[in-house]
């Protein structure tokens, strides 16, 4: 049966960009305000899930870079752990983080923190895990329908 989902698909095209932008905002806000890697990653995953729903898994998967989501999740955790271990070099306890401020030409006085790298790891891990779960379930669905 062919369903007519023109409205869903059209809305999705716009909404995905809004969701993805919002996820970046959440990710960066997380340093001082509510937000952060976990939520940022989850929101990206929700954007992709919306695409999966509006179109079909195969089409969307073809549009994404051919990376195994599991590998992405593993790489995320590795990145987070290794960032935590960076403090070993400076003789500080595990997971210690540092930050500094830099005067950039356009942005003005900007704060840089090593915990952002840690958060990128968290975001990757959450994104990879959420999507590999959804992807696995959708593969199962195809088997049922056959």
């Amino acid at each position, binding site marked *: 049966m062919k369903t007519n989902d023109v409205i869903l698909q059209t809305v999705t095209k716009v909404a995905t960009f809004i969701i993805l932008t919002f996820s970046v905002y959440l990710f960066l806000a997380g340093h001082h305000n509510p937000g952060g890697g976990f939520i940022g990653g989850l929101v990206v995953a929700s954007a992709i899930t919306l695409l999966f729903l509006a179109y079909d898994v195969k089409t969307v998967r073809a549009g994404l870079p051919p990376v195994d989501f*599991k*590998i992405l999740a*593993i*790489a995320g*955790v*590795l990145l987070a*752990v*290794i960032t935590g*271990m960076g*403090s*070993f070099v400076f*003789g*500080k*306890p*595990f*997971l*210690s*983080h540092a930050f500094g401020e830099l005067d950039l030409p356009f942005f003005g006085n900007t704060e840089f923190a090593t915990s952002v790298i840690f958060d990128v790891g968290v975001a990757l891990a959450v994104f990879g895990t959420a999507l590999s779960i959804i992807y696995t379930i959708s593969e199962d669905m195809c088997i049922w329908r056959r």
Partner: protein
Amino acid sequence: MMNNLVVLPLLIPLLAGLIMAMFRKNIPFHRWFSLFSFSLTFAVSLYLIHQVSIGGIQILELGGWPAPFGIVLVVDMLSALLLTTTSFVGIACILFAFKSIGEEREQFYFYPLFQFLITGVNGSFLTGDLFNLFVCFEVMLISSYVLLSLGGTRIQFRETIKYVVINSLSSTLFLVAVAYLYASVGTLNIAHLSIRVAEAGQTGFMTTIAILFLTVFSLKAALFLFFWLPGSYSAAPTAIAAVFGALLTKVGIYAIFRMFYLVFYHQPEITHALMGVMAALTMLLGGIGAVAHWDIRNILAYNVIIGVGFIVSGLAVFTYVALIGVIYYIIHDMVMKALLFLLGGTMIRIVGTSKLKEMSGLIRNHPLLGWLFFIAAFSLAGVPPLSGFIGKILIIQEGLAKGAANAGFYWLAAIGLLSSLMIIYSLMKIFINGFWGETFLTRNMEKGSTKGLLLPCVLLTTVGILWGVGAEIFYPVIEQAAKSMLNPNFYIEAVLREVV
């Protein structure tokens, strides 16, 4: 005393597991890398023992946040000893898995999962914070769910469902107990809890929370609430069952140890007496199970239960000497249970069945296997000079000494002795039926070979014998562990040096 080494027993297996999972297809890499990871953890743990014996309790405040607010990892002598034993048992089980686990399981992340399991176990031994204990329990349990169901045979699925349900239930109760405790004293740092509970007094409400914790940890440790254990441990492949039998229940016991020696030690006439009753029942029921069964897997699983009962009976006696006995015994039990499961698994592999009545006369073709089993059986029963002896004699002697004041301890000691008889009876049943008698199987008719399987068994036996014969050499270390467990102030001062 900031010491980054403290986090390594947790980090090494975690990193190793992650790296291995990246390269899923490369099985030889998985094998050697897991061996490397456990050897490294073993070396670090040995070094930690050395550091603790010189410099006292080592702590690490993660991210540099001081203790009651941030997360701390704490290594005292008991944790260091358990970490060392864990990585050693890990090495032995991995060596056994090389030849026995099968390519299919290896391809579905067996080795990374094994690493994550050890990450959880080590984390539970390291953490100085009740909530992180919960988290590490979960890391350990989730890996164990997958390891138990990996391979997907019918019996595995059936037992995994039970195992998952019972453990989810106990995890929920754990969380409820943690919430109650946090609501009433406002902290979850174990050292801080110890102070707060001592200040507020262990009232009836506190004792109720303590008993809730005891229930949760008993479910994990298979203390009295062991109904889930025989089924699930006998469904798993040998290498996995060995590591479960040796380590997972001990983590539950370790949690009981910490909570009831550091935090809830004010009313032993209620909490520790309850532990004593539960331990006695565990030994009796486990003993009956071990004696009654005619299937190697089931007999071994029930032996795990008897061991748990005996260790907790030592905790219930609650004296310094009994504590030394408990620490001797818990390490002996970890090594010997792993050995026993590996030997039983080897027998099953040779004969192709786990039913005792269908095997006979293995000693003709497998003398080494037979004698290793004999040593393991005598060691578990507590025959001197093997490793179980010192722990047993210290615990039972203290039980008898305390019996003068409270007749209940006579019962506990008597049941402890009876359980040794049941252990030796059940294991000799395996020995007599499996190794004695007429040899049916010629070498060509055997279902599987023992090639490479006996090396880890020999390793474990050697350590077991050393632990028994060299008990005197290890005494200073054990003494330090017992002292720091019996004086919560050592732990508190090490963790909260800035606040107190």
